[in-house]
């Protein structure tokens, strides 16, 4: 992955001055490096999605069904009746502009249609034309447009330039959530087969093999065992690798990148070491080998179908409750959607930590606990021994991943853990963390090679805040609790702030964890030599 433009040059292309011409009369221009490729027909077929065909966004002809307009408008009408959010958000925006410069894509590109308000207006203009009296009578004055191929091209471009991060929604006086609008706009486009491959192929893989990467059961087992081997080399301890184990107390669901990507993998090592140390009776599942849900980037129906396997597997394996690993959009779905989509989980028990006895009252319906909630509780109750100095080579900061931040409010749990496993920690500036956190710029299915320039632009505000603490406080590690972050922040930082690395929280837990009977650790989990204890 590379971008010819140097960071300084890229920054110079950004101007927040809008063009002269009104946005409605300004058609979109597809620029290389700023959009994603169309969905592969085979993937669409496997999950029975409409209009599978070979096509690319830069083609003249998108090979749409003849009646594509009717399909979209019909779908629009249906969703207005089904989602109060959509109807309300179409009606009440006052165009105050408070959200305008809150979006990382606007900040990084200066493209006015990346202001959340205009992104939503793209849909609203058609809404007004089709569903309101004023729009029908005087389109020009009411800001209404007909749905044309040009409008569709604009939708595709800009609704796949939104990472559904919800930052705009925090600042909007009415809470208008452009992520919700994007979700529904993508769902509409999917009705005519307009979607992107980096969403559709993982969806189809996940449907078939249980995970986005298409890893088959034996491959899953190999990866987990490989991790146990590595841990044994590092610590001298052989940890358990339970997979599809019936009757285990807890089902543990992680994003698939944890066992296939770096630096995710070191987080996996951390989880496994921790669970061994506390003697947790848990199991992985090769069928529910994905906590993430790319279905949530394209339609409610696919989101539901993919999510169903988690409860189904919990039921089949007869576990009591579920823990979920470090992943952002995964937790959006688990926290805000799963119970509604596939609950009630009345066959499970209210989660209770077998180690500390803590009952996780906040999960009494869903029965699914976030790993940082679980670990923070262990630490609070002094159930694990931690040697912070083993992370002395890191000077860390913490990136609040969008979804746990703005769709959950998971702020203190990871920070509490960090406080206990690490000596050197610095927060990034206030307007860039917690509920105001900036997206990695590659979420919601946009983390592709072909979209690289847009990712570097979208990730600019995040990277810039990292640069601030790197330069002023010597930060050399960006921690996070999201699998997409772990995949996309490294190239982002490589571009904007070379020298800062990325790690999951449980990697640092794994480093600091003093295990019974372990050999002296010479390296951390990623094989960096450990800082020698100061020899006098």
């Amino acid at each position, binding site marked *: 992955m590379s971008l010819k433009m140097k960071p300084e040059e890229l*920054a110079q292309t950004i101007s927040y001055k809008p063009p002269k011409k009104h946005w409605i009369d300004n058609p979109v221009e597809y620029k290389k490096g700023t959009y994603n490729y169309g969905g592969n027909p085979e993937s669409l077929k496997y999950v029975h999605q409409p209009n599978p065909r070979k096509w690319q966004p830069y083609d003249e002809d998108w090979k749409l069904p003849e009646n594509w307009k009717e399909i979209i408008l019909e779908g629009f009408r249906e969703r207005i009746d089904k989602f109060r959010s959509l109807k309300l958000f179409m009606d009440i925006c006052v165009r105050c*502009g408070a959200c305008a410069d809150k979006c990382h894509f606007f900040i990084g590109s200066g493209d006015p249609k990346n202001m959340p308000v205009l992104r939503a207006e793209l849909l609203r203009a058609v809404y007004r034309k089709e569903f309101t009296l004023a729009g029908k009578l005087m389109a020009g004055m009411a800001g209404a447009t007909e749905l044309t191929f040009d409008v569709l091209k604009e939708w595709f471009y800009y609704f796949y330039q939104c990472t559904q991060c919800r930052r705009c929604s925090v600042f909007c006086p009415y809470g208008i959530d452009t992520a919700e609008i994007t979700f529904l706009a993508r769902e509409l486009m999917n009705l005519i087969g307009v979607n992107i491959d980096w969403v559709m192929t993982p969806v189809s893989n996940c449907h078939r093999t249980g995970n986005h990467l298409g890893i088959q059961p034996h491959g899953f087992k190999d990866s987990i065992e490989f991790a146990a081997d590595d841990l044994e080399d590092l610590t001298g301890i052989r940890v358990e690798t339970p997979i599809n184990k019936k009757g285990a107390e807890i089902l543990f669901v992680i994003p698939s990148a944890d066992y296939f990507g770096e630096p995710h993998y070191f987080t996996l090592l951390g989880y496994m070491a921790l669970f061994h140390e506390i003697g947790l009776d848990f199991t992985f599942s090769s069928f529910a080998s994905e906590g993430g849900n790319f279905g949530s980037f394209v339609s409610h129906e696919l989101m539901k179908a993919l999510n169903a396997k988690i409860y189904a597997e919990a039921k089949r394996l007869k576990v009591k409750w579920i823990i979920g690993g470090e992943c952002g959009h995964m937790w959006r779905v688990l926290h*805000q959607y799963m*119970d*509604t989509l596939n609950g009630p989980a009345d066959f499970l028990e209210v989660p209770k930590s077998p180690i500390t006895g803590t009952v996780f009252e906040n999960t009494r319906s869903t029965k699914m606990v976030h790993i940082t909630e679980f670990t923070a509780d262990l630490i609070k109750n002094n159930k694990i021994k931690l040697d912070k100095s083993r992370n002395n080579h890191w000077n860390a900061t913490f990136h609040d991943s969008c979804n746990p931040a703005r769709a959950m409010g998971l702020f203190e749990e990871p920070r509490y853990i960090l406080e206990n496993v690490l000596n050197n920690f610095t927060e990034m500036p206030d307007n860039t963390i917690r509920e105001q956190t900036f997206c990695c710029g590659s979420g919601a299915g946009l983390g592709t090679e072909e979209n690289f320039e847009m990712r570097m632009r979208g990730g600019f505000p995040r990277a810039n805040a990292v640069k601030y603490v790197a330069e002023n406080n010597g930060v050399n590690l960006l921690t996070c609790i999201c699998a997409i972050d772990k995949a996309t922040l490294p190239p982002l930082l490589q571009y904007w702030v070379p020298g800062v690395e990325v790690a999951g929280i449980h990697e640092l837990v794994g480093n600091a964890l003093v295990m019974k009977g372990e050999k002296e650790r010479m390296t951390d989990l990623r094989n960096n030599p450990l800082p020698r204890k100061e020899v006098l």
Partner: protein
Amino acid sequence: MGIWFSLVALAALTLLGLIGANVPGLNYVFAVIIPYIAITVFIVGIIVRIVIWARSPVPFRIPTTGGQQKSLSFIKQNRLDNPSSYLGVLGRMALEVLFFRSLFRNTKAELKEGPNLTYGANKWLWLFSLAFHWSFLIIFLRHFRFFTQPIPFFVPYLQEIDGFFQIWVPIIYITDCVIVAALSYLFFRRVFDSKIRYISLPSDYFPLLLISGIAITGILMRYFFKTDLVAVKELMLGILSFSPSVHAVGLSSWFYLHLFFVCSLLIYFPMSKLVHLTGIFMSPTRNLANTNRMVRHVNPWIDELKMKPHTYEEYEDEFRTVMKGAGMPLDKEESHVS
């Protein structure tokens, strides 16, 4: 273009209002019939709007969380920005509606040499917006002295506080100055801030101009061109008690204009963005408690999401051989055994 369109629309309304005031036969229409129509359109329109919104269900519970969730006992929850109870939601909504909590967070992104991004606090919009809405409300409440007999208890208090500085005769109300300043700010930021101009539609300039029209005619009547208040009150009481009569004496053109603008606003209200007044109360990212994992949220149409999930049986059928080869437990075999 949007600005001009709105100005022309306002000019047209002004002309109409003046005609109503000065063509004798039309007085009754403008002083009685149009107000009735306007009040009816407003009430019915708002109700219809709410009913239409309410008819669409809230399929998922999607609060935007602005603070720490309720989780472990030793972690302090932010009860207002991330409420988990009815009371918390009430608090959050009260902050939004009364003090524009979210707008208060506003920042301004700037790209400086370096490149360095900064996000300075930017409270002007919040300040003037709040000033506008509150003065609008207070002015509206003060008007009750024209609408009811006896005058409601709160009116004299409001008048006294609002006239606190006791300058000029008649005493100048603070809210009169504030609303003009705030409206000017809101209007001119749309005209001069290039970003805001770029996103503005005619329907964004128009209500500001119309409300300015109301405020300015009102102020002119109070301080410069006296109107017969007894006649005004008689007219209003007549309308509100459904026995209207018009005493043309004393009702100046200014009054006709003022009243006609108000009627226009009432009619325009339900079909415009001004319905944010009621919409904000129904916004699902703000009015729901973040109890997502505590209490199940039911979606009435969930079964319409028909796609069948891939089942474990199908999965095992497809991968049985490799699973067996890897020594992984199998369901089918087990069922043979037991």
